[in-house]
């Protein structure tokens, strides 16, 4: 029988973050998930996790820290000063959105700290300014708990909450 599981990284970490930013910027800032940059409009925001780290192992759950990387990309036009001002303004706005949504409400996650911001990142794209925003997100994952019973003939079966059982030989 297949296990019950949740797509935590995508559903609980990445999607709420993207939705909050989309709500804030409406259509003015395309926000997408990918590990590589896409050519979208004059400015865009790329979101992708780089890693997760176990913080604490509990009896029925695991507390993990998810490191999320966001690259803000704006195309340079003219002498670049306008684009630079726009980048600083938008990055500050993103930072404020994250600060104002430091807990997930009905979704049990919260940011483990304020984001770190690095300007002038080399993302391998020409004629753009790139600002990298890195945010740590904590999430506690509750997992299924099984109990093991051994039978008299050395076989065993495993139960969860009594509603069903899994037999392994």
């Amino acid at each position, binding site marked *: 029988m*297949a*296990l*019950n*599981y*949740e*797509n*935590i*990284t*995508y559903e609980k970490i*990445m999607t709420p973050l993207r939705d909050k930013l989309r709500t804030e910027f409406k259509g003015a800032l395309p926000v*997408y*998930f*990918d*590990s*590589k940059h896409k050519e979208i409009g004059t400015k865009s925001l790329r979101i*992708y*996790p*780089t*890693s*997760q*780290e*176990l913080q604490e*192992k509990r009896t029925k759950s*695991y507390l993990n820290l998810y490191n999320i990387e966001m690259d803000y990309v704006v195309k340079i036009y003219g002498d670049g000063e306008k684009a630079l001002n726009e980048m600083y303004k938008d990055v500050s706005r993103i930072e404020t959105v994250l600060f104002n949504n430091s807990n997930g409400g009905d979704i049990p996650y919260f940011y483990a700290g304020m984001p770190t911001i690095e300007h002038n990142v080399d993302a391998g794209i020409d004629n753009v300014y790139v600002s990298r925003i890195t945010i740590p997100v904590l999430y506690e994952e509750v*997992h*299924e*708990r*099984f109990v*093991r019973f051994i039978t008299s003939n050395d076989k065993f079966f*495993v139960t969860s909450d009594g509603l069903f059982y899994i037999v*392994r030989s």
Partner: protein
Amino acid sequence: MAVASTNAWKIDIEETIQRAIKNEFFSSLPVFRSRDFQHRGNQFCILKGDNSEPQNTMYQVLPNSYNLDFEFYMLDHKRNDTTIKHFFNQVSRIEETFYSLADIDPLFNCTINGITYEDDVEFNGYRKATYDMTVRNVR
């Protein structure tokens, strides 16, 4: 006379992990133990043992911590929202499989210390998640 010994890395650790993944994914996610990366279909895993550390020396048993890397590869040519969602769905499912494994076998304690994501040109379109795992086992 040769001593009787158990091939702990193979039988107790790696084959237990292979069996758990096979029970959950059947043949859709093969787990290989080869060290060299080779493209093998749409999705596959490679299990790499790193090292083992002894725990307390005990009478009649050998408790060890085994450190492994479990690499999951998924081919992603489309690179859209749906395929990214599917990739992380598989990552969570593998994670849950390891956690359930820890509960089922009393001699097998599995911890995922972290997962790192890579997506390099050298993988030819594959997305990669590397699980840094520690398995405590007594034999």
